[in-house]
């Protein structure tokens, strides 16, 4: 049963029990009230009967008019009591007695009136004899004692009823107390069950969270650790109770491949907490353990939203040491294989060249055509192998960044000279715009050369004939950087693929048709180099209109 249903049942039972108890108390109070009223009437009646008797005695003794008047008053009181009694004495036995009381009262009243009328205050002038007076007196006494008896009888009846009611009430109170006790007990048990279930649910959820087989750290909105998986403890070397409530940034510093601590503003966790951005990383980041060693991680950091607000963030991460090792082994293999490929490729190239130049006899046109295909196919392979080698060296880090004072304009011109035949062949309009005030700065010329080469190669390759290409190099002395801009009015890069353009082996859909020999490696090489040189690369592009690549390099 659902917890909501259970709490509802507990509430309904408690509500019904209190209504029941309320009704019972109301009935008990009304009944008690009624009985009290009856008792008051009966005792009042009793008292008044005796008073009336006394008044008669008084009259007979002193013969004063006041006694007679009081007697009549008392009679009216008694009538009043009887009138009240008629309203509330509604049980048949009570009514029967009441009727007989009324009868006796009537006789008393009549007899009394007779007595007062005939025996005035002057007994000597009495119309009747003493004997008659005595007779009337007797009658009166008989009726009176009968009435007293009847009233007593009524009192007894009521007392009995009160006694019975009290007994009944006692039993009912006992029953209700017992019932309420059980209801409360049942409710309490249920509430306890509900609490236990809630606690269990909570504990289960927590167990689920901490049993996640990957690294998992949850933080609150201020970046303080509120939960972590057991696996995390093993990975980072800290126990949860050691770091609970501490700022994640202080506990687990994040470093890049060069071992430098990543700035707070660049951390995925910061982005999640401040901007609600979910970040997925694959490489470059490493976590520092308790013992100051580190391991590379792949992580997904996502904000935790609750009722539309960011209440924290959760970091799921994995140790990718093995992946990195495999990746390295793969890169090493590529490097080795490319190396081995170079010699036979050179041999094919040289021999084909010698045949083509007629070194070993005349080549007929048909043969020449095929040989040229072999030659250019081989050239493509050489270029690909070179690129693969460059990549593997960049990835393995064997390409040590070799900083030298470099004249960037001379370097650009050198690459342009290489590109010139291709530019001319496609009749492209080339414009250069080199800042006149660019001093030599410290960078790696051979790596930077590859940047120029790849960006210009692409611009030439992916711009249709008679298109335009611009190369701009400028120095921003305020920002202390060098800005290279390579723009073309070529095929462009589709908007939805621009974010993937720097990934390895990625080629935009629209240019696959124009050039089938592209490898999708050029911009990856460029990006890797720019990263190593500490620069930035970004682009603006519109499909069918052209592309602009921007490279900014630190001026050192």
């Amino acid at each position: 049963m659902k917890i909501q249903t259970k709490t509802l049942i507990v509430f309904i039972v408690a509500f019904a029990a209190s209504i029941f108890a309320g009704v019972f108390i109301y009935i008990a109070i009304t009944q008690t009230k009624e009985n009290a009223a009856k008792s008051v009437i009966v005792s009042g009646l009793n008292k008044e009967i005796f008073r009336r008797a006394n008044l008669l005695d008084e009259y007979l003794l002193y013969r004063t008019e006041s006694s007679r008047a009081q007697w009549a008053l008392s009679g009216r009181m008694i009538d009043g009591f009887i009138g009240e009694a008629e309203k509330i004495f509604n049980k048949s036995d009570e009514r029967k007695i009441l009727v007989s009381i009324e009868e006796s009262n009537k006789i008393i009243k009549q007899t009394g009136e007779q007595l007062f009328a005939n025996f005035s205050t002057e007994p000597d002038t009495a119309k009747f004899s003493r004997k008659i007076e005595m007779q009337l007196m007797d009658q009166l006494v008989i009726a009176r004692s009968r009435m007293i008896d009847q009233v007593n009888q009524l009192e007894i009846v009521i007392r009995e009823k009160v006694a019975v009611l009290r007994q009944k009430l006692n039993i009912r109170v006992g029953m209700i107390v017992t019932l309420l006790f059980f209801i409360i007990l049942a409710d309490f048990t249920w509430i306890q069950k509900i609490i236990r279930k809630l606690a269990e649910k909570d504990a289960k959820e927590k167990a689920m969270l901490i049993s996640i087989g990957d690294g998992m750290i949850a933080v609150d909105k201020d970046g303080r650790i509120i939960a972590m998986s057991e696996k995390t403890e093993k990975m980072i070397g800290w126990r949860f109770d050691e770091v609970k409530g501490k700022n994640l940034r202080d506990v687990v510093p994040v470093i890049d491949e060069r071992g430098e601590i990543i700035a707070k503003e660049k951390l995925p966790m910061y982005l999640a907490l401040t901007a609600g951005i979910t970040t997925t990383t694959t490489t470059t980041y490493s976590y520092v353990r308790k013992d100051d060693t580190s391991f590379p991680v792949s992580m997904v950091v996502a904000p935790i939203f609750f009722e539309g607000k960011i209440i924290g963030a959760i970091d799921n991460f994995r140790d990718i040491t093995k992946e990195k090792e495999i990746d390295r082994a793969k890169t090493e293999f590529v490097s080795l294989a490319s190396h081995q490929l170079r010699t036979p490729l050179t041999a094919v190239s040289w021999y084909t060249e010698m045949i083509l130049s007629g070194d070993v006899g005349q080549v007929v046109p048909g043969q020449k055509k095929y040989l040229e295909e072999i030659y250019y196919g081989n050239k493509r392979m050489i270029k690909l192998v070179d690129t693969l080698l460059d990549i593997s060296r960049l990835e393995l880090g064997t390409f040590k960044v070799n900083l030298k004072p470099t004249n960037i304009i001379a370097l650009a011109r050198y690459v342009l000279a290489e590109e010139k035949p291709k530019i001319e062949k496609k009749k492209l309009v080339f414009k250069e715009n080199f800042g006149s005030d660019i001093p030599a700065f410290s960078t790696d010329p051979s790596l930077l050369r590859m940047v120029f080469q790849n960006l210009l190669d692409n611009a030439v390759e992916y711009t249709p004939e008679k298109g335009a290409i611009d190369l701009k190099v400028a120095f921003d002395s305020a920002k202390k950087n060098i800005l290279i801009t390579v723009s073309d009015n070529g095929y462009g890069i589709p908007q939805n693929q621009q974010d993937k353009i720097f990934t390895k082996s990625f080629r935009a859909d629209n240019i696959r048709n124009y050039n089938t020999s592209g490898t999708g490696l050029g911009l990856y090489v460029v990006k890797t180099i720019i990263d190593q040189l500490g620069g930035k690369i970004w682009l603006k592009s519109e499909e069918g209109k052209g592309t602009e690549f921007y490279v900014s390099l630190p001026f050192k």
Partner: protein
Amino acid sequence: MYLSHLNDIIKYMENDKIILIVEDEKSLREALNDKLTREGFTVFEAKDGEEGLEMSRKVRPGLILLDLLMPKMSGTEMAKKLREEEWGKNVKIIILTNLTEEEKVKRELENSVYEYIIKNDVRIDQVVEKVKRILEC
């Protein structure tokens, strides 16, 4: 044998027409040999550094085309040994290399004069051009 016969001839030849190719890859070695022979040079071959050193002592070439990665003795080692010998100090050397070895060579042969050819970057006629240019000056 073959060499001792040749020795006499060589003495009378201008040694700037003699080229020694030290390269362990047979296909590349023979391609260069064929091409340079057709261009009118006298070409000798050696397939490793050790053989190259021995051969160069005998034939005293005007130019050595020297591969780097070879069994027994590497190109750089051979070049160093060559430069230690009196006659070998000024022998012209063109190093045949793959791109990746550039830095290493620069480090190891810092005090030695040599030219540099990246094998799979050049056409064979460019090699010939370079050889001619170097021998002329």
